[in-house]
């Protein structure tokens, strides 16, 4: 399976993978990262989040990195997730795809090219 065969990703998947590219996170941590990144515009709920993780795990894009005790308790252990090497390549492939799209948008003057903006 090639990383390209996994693209295009859904918006949620792309967000989750992008957040995981910074390092491993547990479920609630992913939510917090996304809220921070989108200034609160997108807030994932448990059902949607874990269903997406289930899909990403099934496709070997994301894997469990281990369990650690939750900060405020002694016995609860939570799962942490990270990108697999393959997952990193999928994320890269998706970002490449998006870059091509952005270029197209720039050429057609839908958005101003970065260079033009700087000027």
């Amino acid at each position, binding site marked *: 399976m090639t990383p390209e065969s996994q693209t295009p990703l*859904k*918006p*949620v998947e792309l967000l989750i993978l992008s957040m995981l590219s910074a390092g491993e996170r*547990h*479920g*609630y941590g992913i*939510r917090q990262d996304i809220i921070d990144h989108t200034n609160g*515009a*997108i*807030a*994932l*709920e*448990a*059902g*949607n*989040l*874990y*269903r*997406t*993780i*289930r*899909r990403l795990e*099934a496709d070997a894009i994301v894997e469990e990195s281990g369990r650690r005790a*939750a900060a*405020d*308790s002694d016995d*609860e252990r*939570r*799962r942490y997730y990270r990108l697999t090497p393959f997952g990193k390549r999928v994320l890269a492939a998706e970002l490449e795809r998006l870059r091509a799209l952005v270029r197209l948008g720039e050429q057609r003057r839908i958005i101003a090219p970065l260079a033009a903006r700087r000027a």
Partner: protein
Amino acid sequence: MSVPGERLVRALLALYPREFRARYAADMLDFYRERVRNDGMLRTWFAAVPDLVANALAERFAWLHHEAECAPVVARMHTRYREEHMSILVQDVRYALRSMRRRPSFTAVVLLTLALGIGANSAIFTVVNATILRPLPFADAARIVDFTHEDPYSSVSEPEFWDYERGVAGLEKLAAYSTPSIVLDGGDGDPLRTYTARVSRDFFDIVGVKPMLGRTFTPDEFSPSTHARVTVLGHRLWVQQFGADPRIIGKTVQITGTPFTVIGVMPAAFTFPDVEASLWTPWRMNPDSLWTRNNHYLRLVGRIAPSSSLAQVRAQVRTLDTRWMHDFPETYSPDKPLTGTVQPIADYLLGPTRPFLLALLGAVGLILLIASVNVANLLLVRGEARRKEVAIRAALGASRSRIMRQLMTESMLFAAFGALLGVAVAWVGTGVLVDLAPGDLPRIDQVSVDLRVVLFTIAITMLTGVAFGLLPALRMRRGDSADALRDGGKTSGHIASGAARRTLVVAEITLAVMILAGAGLLVRSLIQLRAMDLGFDPDGVMTLQVTLPRGKYNDTTAALFIDQLVSRTRSLPGVTSASAVDNLPISGSDNGWSIMIDGVVVKTIAEAPSARPEVVTPEYFRTMQTRMVRGRGFTPLDRAGAPFVAVVSEGLARTLWPGVDPIGHTLKMFGAQSPWTTIVGVVRDVKLRGLQKDIPGTMYFPYAQSGQSAYVTPTSMTLVARTNGDPTALAPQMRRIVRSLDGSAAISRVTPMRAVVGDSIASRRFTTLLLAGFAALALALAGIGIYGVVSYGVSQRTYEIGVRVAMGASAASIARLVMREAAGMTVIGLALGVAGALVADRLIRSMLVDVSAGDPLTLVSVVLLLAVVAATACALPARRAAAVNPTAALRND
């Protein structure tokens, strides 16, 4: 550490598929806790509940379709467009909830009606799903076929099986089995009389079911030269007799005195070929010493080859049968053709139950239709009251589709709440159904709610919501707003909507007539069965089956044992007579055997008539109160060594000696060793197998002579005792007598004869009872529907009635006016219903006994009953109309 609402989240998590739950439920709970800590309970709930429910459904579907493409529900990820629509939906839902709360009694009636309709459907569907829809416990069941011969052969002989196995190319594999009775010893408690499935080599390969413990038979365990005595236990036997011992493999059990090693245990779902057969043993067929071709006792199960089809297999079987008829004229007579029947295994196993369950499903479907019609009616009536409101909204600029959407939201919401209540009804209902259901309903022990039931309930809920919401919504939309505003939504407009309501009532009456007619026909069938002449009197008779250990008794000692058993039973207090019989009526078999009559020896089976042998001890006919038509019954003098005697049934006498007194004539079982017996008596026909119509001719032989006159002395006999008290009270004493005579004799089927008769019609009684219940529900719903419409009509016409009364109309003529309208609807509904019943009740024809599908008496009773209900339902509004005070009615505007 737990936070508020955690229990509810756990409950919602239960909606997810098991695999998903196992992996993520703990993390999701953890997620929820953290969320509550940071954002507070209310905000979390508002977002978390829809998310959890929606994703649970999506995940279920994803699992179903093996794809992960499902719309993710992401809070605030909507585009502007979507947001607008969402907020409209929220608005509509809020609005609908408010209007539901405003009219609590209306809402309650609607919800109750829907809950009953949806609940009854889900409950019945749950049972139907478990018994006939769920896949059978076989691998690739669609290719497995049941294979036997039609009457008079009704089973397959060893040489025939041997030839079929080689001659039918379309069958990849073919196995034979029989289910002889055995006595099992070696578990907990007393010796157990049960059945074993003796199966040929490919049996387990064909069904493709793996054992739960251990293994099934290997090919060399079927070799005629092997001495391996091995058995595979059924799950129920393993649990009940061996306490679910996990180390059972390798242990020894005694099967009718022979030690067998347990090599495997099958899973609970696998009960093929028979629920009663509690274990499997290999049947070693020796091709060198096959039984004769006319000894039919096997049933076959086969697997169709991948390259072949059922039709091809049937054609190949037909070709073989035709050839054999020609090749073996001494076995198959031309007027008794050999016909193999090959059917899918599902038809064989579920066939008899299917019509009953489908009839029930059809009936509850009609109930749901009636419920929908009723609710549609109520909504229409209320819609009239809301015309003005809708008109104002339209005038203020609401688009028609917007209004329609709002109304549909309301009906979908009603349906959803109705479904929630319906699930509660179904929960209770399914439990009651399983308790009431007869034991012979296949797989009734496996009834449970699964995904399919959930989907079914959701589907019927949506359908109902659309069905009862659409008509009122369409009607509303069509209304001319200016018109409605002008006359205050009071008089105009309901001529057309009145027609719609009347149509619905007509539909309701039509459906009610159909259900009632079906129920009526089944009730009549049941009554016919009850009144049926059994040929004996089951009341006051207790029965108990005794099986002697094989090898321990010879003909003489067995006769002595049975004789002592019967005479001790006879001396019990309250017992007026006692006897013993080989096969108990009703639950017995009806296999015919070839015989010869009047001293004439015939050479081939094909020329021989057939009759069913039965072995009894003296006083049997007196105990069962089967009337002697001529001659005498058996006495203790008809013992071994005395002249051989027999008693024949009236039916057999009529076939073999038409118009002649059979007493003094002779008959014998086919074969040189069997002695000629002289007929000494004729008895009434007795129902042998269920309450079947045609009773095969029966010949009775005395037990003491049966070793010679009936081939063998039966080692298993059923003790029957007639008492003038309660028959069940005899059971402990009868058991004690058997125990004191021989502790190693197995006791089974300790049942009053009345219960044996009752059990044989248990399925039918169950269906009839349910259908009658549904019919009563339909009748009540139809009555409420008629009342609602007529009563509403009267209230709308108060002004008009006031005018009439003011003009001098009498109270009686006003009542007549109201009644006439209702009568019109009723007559049309009844006529359509009778027509519908004539068509639909054909479907249940196979379940009817001595009643035709268009039975006039049933139809007339149903019509009268509904007419009475309709009259009652409109009598109240009619009275109210007659009592209208013209002054008040006319002033009121």
